[in-house]
């Protein structure tokens, strides 16, 4: 299966759930998927044995500073589920708000996703429902609650911390 056909297959598989499809690079397709449809979309890819989960990348998308008089816009978090099949890359792009960063867990479909999901929880503050383990993974056990290092609002401890 060459790259183009692979991407076409992915597109037809994800047709029911993809809100928009873009192709930033010849070997890479982005599918924007609603959080509610994520499980079904992943299931469809896996059922068709389309590649494997390469990574889940979290991205913080803080709202730009509001213009005069406007109400502040809502900040978002995006999770990119990247699937690789040969040279082809399919990205499922799921966006949630800071206020309610809830995503379903895909660990039932792909057990190895647990590590990425835990990273999302710890580093970005996602709330992933039904993920098997939620312990601290990388950060020390005494890490403060509700501080997520990879969010843009986090800028270190400002030197107040000392050994």
């Amino acid at each position, binding site marked *: 299966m060459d790259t183009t056909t692979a991407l076409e297959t992915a597109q037809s598989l994800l047709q029911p759930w993809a809100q928009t499809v873009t192709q*930033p*690079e010849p*070997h*890479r397709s982005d599918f924007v998927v609603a959080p509610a449809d994520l499980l079904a979309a992943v299931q469809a890819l896996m059922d068709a044995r389309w590649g*494997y*989960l*390469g*990574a889940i*990348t*979290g*991205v*913080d998308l803080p709202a730009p500073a509001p213009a005069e008089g406007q109400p502040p816009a809502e900040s978002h978090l995006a999770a*990119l589920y*990247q699937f*690789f099949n*040969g*040279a082809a*890359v399919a*990205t499922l792009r799921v966006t949630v708000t800071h206020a309610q960063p809830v995503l379903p867990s895909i660990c039932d479909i*792909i*057990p*190895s996703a*647990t*590590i990425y999901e*835990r*990273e999302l929880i710890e*580093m970005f503050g996602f709330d992933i429902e039904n993920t098997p*383990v939620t*312990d*601290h*993974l*990388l*950060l*020390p056990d005494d890490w403060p609650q509700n501080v997520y*290092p*990879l969010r*843009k609002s*986090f800028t270190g401890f400002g030197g107040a911390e000392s050994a």
Partner: protein
Amino acid sequence: MTNQSQPQKFIVPIGPQHPALKEPGHFEFGVDGEIVTSATIRLGFVHRGIEKATEDRTWVQNLYLLERICGICSNIHGTVYAIGVEKLAGVEIPPRAKYIRTIVAELERVHSHLLWLGVAAHEGGFDTLFMYSWRDRETVMDLLEGLSGNRVNYSTNLIGGVKFDINEKQADEIRRGLDFLEERTHYYMKVVTTDETFLGRTRDIGTMTREQAELLGAVGPTARASGVPRDVRSESPYLAYNEHPIQLQVHDGGDLLARFIVRLNELFDTYRLIRELLDHMPAGDLTVRVPRRIPEGEVLIRGEAPRGELVYYLKSSGSDKPDRIKVRTPSLCNWGTISHVAVGHKLADMPMLLVGIDPCFSCNDRLVTVNNTQNSQDLTWDALRRYGIEYYK
């Protein structure tokens, strides 16, 4: 013996400081006699917050920061990152630079696999093999030091090219070194596949079927030793791998022995590839100019590190600093296999098993997996002793 009255969980911690691990990671193996019943991994001892740190460093500075994610496969990190930035900036590096990057990447694979061979032998208590393979590894270390000026962090890459050239004299030195190493690798292959005492430690240990490997998301030699034909260099060739394809090394064994064989076979292929690349080096410049501000966009780059597939996700917002860099290192994927495979093996096999995936804590310090396939039994010291007596009857 002091607390034999109250039941205690018998858990053997390995790490973060432990002779088997030159890097800190913390494992807890629940043991039943000598049999491992559960495996827990706690990482994070080397978590340095690199992904966050990239966001307040410039694209150039990040090259060096990311190189230091892992000291063993430093070059591939820099290379994959540089490829990504160049892609974002829309520049194409000169062909000679591509070849040099490929050669260094392959030399790094040689060093990494020989290192691994030695460490794995050391874990198996075979110090002589460890000493010999590390002695021979010095050959490739000398080559790399002569080329780049550092034995470990070669810093081959600049954004937009490479720092150093390989002249004819150096090329000849590399060829000579490879001839020597090839001969030695044949010898190690013989030792690893025929020595009965060593086979006793590797054969049928940590066997992982192809299905398991795929399900657990194994990558690199670990996956290839389970028969999964997955190698970025052939799947999605980058650098000079288009013109000079690799030969995929796959083995169906799935056990530790297969991992030895796959890695050693890969060495042979790497020797061939480096010679081929040296013979076909195009002439030309080494660098192109890349602007300090990288245009907005995002890319996903994959490369094959000695340990497996390395994924970089770069997102630029158009400034001189990246917006988000995500690194998915190969060891991260292979971790999951450990806790699955460990259960049911002897405690003595654990170091070998751990090393079998060629773990790199520094690389991926970003996870913990807990897998209690069997609940670790609560054992009193008495029960343990009784069990031990039963077991060795």
